């Protein structure tokens, strides 16, 4: 098994008296899709927020390719190669589809002091944006305002915005939420494609989808990991069946 790209060791997050995530450890490897499932309030989003750096961990340690990044800010982690999508679509609705992606690509080469250079002439970010839009299937609507896209297209755009800086680690928070059957299929195909070159963490409620694409599934209940294994084992895990899939499943 390859070395983990992103490694979390006993991550804990407390909000006052509530422990939202309790001593969770997990490893993400390139070529592997790691799904985290759990009921609402199990701490999945808090976990993603700690990994991406949006929330500091109360205790625990996070490593990216062997480097301790626990104290790094979110922008620094993003530049080091951790991309993420949000449960609620997080795009720039007032900007064009192309500019949404180009702006994210600009993060790799920011040069804010060079005010005499036009952003629209920034070749590196333009090329990256064009490629990302093509791979996300949005190449035919670059000038459309992002806010006018359908919900499914907005989710695709958000993935394109994550991919545009080529982060080796992708944290995806419910990318299938609110998607129709056709859009779900397209997104799953994209996830399988991405898996080859990325380390993927997928938080998702759609069980069928998770069992189809995941290589490892971690099950969380009340902030704790109760099981983490390959899908076949998880499907038959007695505790998981009781706690999450339901007794009669």
């Amino acid at each position, binding site marked *: 098994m390859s070395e983990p790209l992103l490694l979390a060791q006993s991550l804990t997050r407390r909000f006052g008296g509530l422990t939202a995530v309790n001593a969770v450890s997990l490893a993400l490897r390139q070529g592997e899709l790691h799904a985290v499932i759990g009921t609402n309030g199990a701490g999945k989003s808090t976990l993603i927020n700690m990994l*991406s750096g*949006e929330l500091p961990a109360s205790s625990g340690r996070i490593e990216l390719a062997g480097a301790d990044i626990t104290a790094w*800010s*979110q*922008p*620094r982690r*993003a*530049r080091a190669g951790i*991309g*993420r999508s*949000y449960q609620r679509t*997080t*795009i*720039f*609705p*007032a*900007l064009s589809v192309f*500019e949404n992606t180009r*702006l*994210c690509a*600009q*993060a*790799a080469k*920011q*040069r*804010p*002091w*060079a*005010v*005499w*250079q*036009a*952003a*629209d002439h*920034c070749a590196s970010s333009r090329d990256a944006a064009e490629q990302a839009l093509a791979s996300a299937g949005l190449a035919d609507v670059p000038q459309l305002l992002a806010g006018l896209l359908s919900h499914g297209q907005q989710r695709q755009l958000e993935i394109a*915005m*994550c991919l545009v*800086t080529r982060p080796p680690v992708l944290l995806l928070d419910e990318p299938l939420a609110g998607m129709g059957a056709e859009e779900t299929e397209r997104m799953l195909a994209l996830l399988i494609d991405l898996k080859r070159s990325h380390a993927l963490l997928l938080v998702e409620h759609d069980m069928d989808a998770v069992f189809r694409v995941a290589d490892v599934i971690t099950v969380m209940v009340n902030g704790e990991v109760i099981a983490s294994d390959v899908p076949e084992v998880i499907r038959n895990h007695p505790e998981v069946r009781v706690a999450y899939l339901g007794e009669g499943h």
Partner: protein
Amino acid sequence: MATDRAWIVPVAALVALAALPGVLAPYTQDLVLKIAVYAIFALSLELLVGMTGLVSLGHAAFLGIGAYVAVLASRDGGAAPLQWLLPASVASAAAYALFVGMLCLRTRGVYFIMVTLAFAQMAYFVFHDTKVGGGSDGIFLYAKPVLAIAGSSLIDLDDKRQLYYTVVAALGFTYGLLALIRRSRFGHALTGIRGNEQRMRAAGFATYPYKLAAFVIAGALAGLAGFLLAVKDGTVNPELLSWHESGAVLLMIILGGIGSLRGAVIGAIAFTLLKELCQSEALLGPLAGHWQLTLGFSIIAFVAWLPKGLIGLAGMRRRGARRV
């Protein structure tokens, strides 16, 4: 592409502005000067509110500091050298903006508005209640700054005409700088921060230094406006830093249309003219004594009918034409 020729209108306006003194009466020329200075002030706030999405209610502090430094630093009798006085004014305003920005930018939304207001009021009371700047009466600028090289004066701001061209040049500089910023990577990043700061951070932008840079540039440009205002009026008083002034400049950009540089300039013109109009006894008779009331009502009317500001009129006409 139409956007490639977007510079034509502002440049034409600037040329027209430069040609004006030949045909204007002294009163009108003074009014144009006042509008030009306020346009610089409004443009500086547009960088914060329109481009970055940071609504500040304390922007007058930087105007006032720029103005006070211009007077305080040139008090030793004789005309102060412009090449030192102007940078000193701008740098002082920028320094206070750096200090205020570092603290304010840790808050968001309505808290940001309140904290910027608080810092501006602090600066206001320093000048109002201490002897630093002559207390509530303010102080006079006895000799206007001069740019002299090897004994011969190149720019003498005591000369009305030279002051006029200096202000027009400063307005052109401010507009040009902000237009450059808008099209640059820095400006696009500010637009991103206004649109969705969370996504910007997730993409890898450390948004705090970006916002701080915008805040300091805005403060410095407001300081430039303050310097010109002090030189133009030959006097400063604490009211320059008051929240009325911060509110007035915010109204200017709302009136003109937030989100465009032209809007800020148009807003400065409209607000200043509207205020002159409401204060004019020749036109409104005894009502001129209650100009705040008429000004207030006219602004409410403008905002109600033109929610996108005066600049939005152009878009409405275009849409109307298409319908016909």
